[in-house]
């Protein structure tokens, strides 16, 4: 339980950075931290006590493997969401660069004011 809770605290820290911080790159870093927190939460859900990685090797017996392997489904979900996070990060950095080029500053408040 405390692992889930600590992970949720990490998510809240990322959310805090996203909402309160005015620097665009800090907002992007906040999003990155929230992505880590969610991915870690999904893998934490799939962990099995004294569980081994779901990779079947030659010297294993299939029956003991089935009862000790960790849950492969959340890992499939997390692999997808890591790459989605990379995609959104690339888009955000591209926009940050262009915003800096147009407004000359990374400060979101300044940009809102200039935009009128």
């Amino acid at each position, binding site marked *: 339980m405390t692992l889930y809770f600590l992970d949720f605290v990490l998510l809240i820290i990322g959310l805090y950075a996203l909402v309160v911080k005015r620097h665009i790159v800090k907002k992007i870093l906040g999003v990155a931290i929230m992505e880590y927190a969610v991915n870690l939460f999904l893998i934490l859900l799939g962990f099995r006590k004294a569980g081994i*990685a779901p*990779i*079947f090797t*030659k010297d294993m017996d299939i029956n003991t493997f089935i009862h000790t392997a960790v849950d492969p489904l959340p890992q499939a979900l997390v*692999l997808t969401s890591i*790459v989605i996070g*990379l995609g959104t990060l*690339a888009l955000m*950095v*591209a926009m940050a*660069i*262009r915003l*800096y*080029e147009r407004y000359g500053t990374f400060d979101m408040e300044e940009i809102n004011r200039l935009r009128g």
Partner: protein
Amino acid sequence: MKKNKQSGMTFIVKTITNLIIGFMMVFGAYIVLYGHITPGGGFPGGVMIALAYILITLAYGRKVVESMVSGIAGSIADDFGALVILILGFIGLLIGGTFLFNFLPKGTPFSLFSAGNIILYNLAITVKVGMSLYIVFLALAILQRVVTEDETQEVRK
């Protein structure tokens, strides 16, 4: 690799890059090809190969890398990677009646060609992920130089 002196980073970085590039490419290829036997798969392998090219860009500057894999060739390879995934899906739809059906024979568990068209998907995803991340890095690199030129100090790129 022609070593033009003025662009790219210091000599030390260049020699280290020469040493590492071979290892990164081989390790990336291993992760992709054995993705269904040992940990790894299309995505990490593809990104690793893209990182090898990005390392060359950082160390030697864009001109050297563009001569090896140009932006246009990269985007065409990217489109072909995506097309291969789609075509495999459609073939599965024709043969097995459902989209993305695994129609190739499954083979013996620990051999290389053991899991039907999983290996084909892995290769297609490697080409797609690797090439698209390489191109987007080139785009980011190009723009970065333009920004610095506006500030009239030539950045050694």
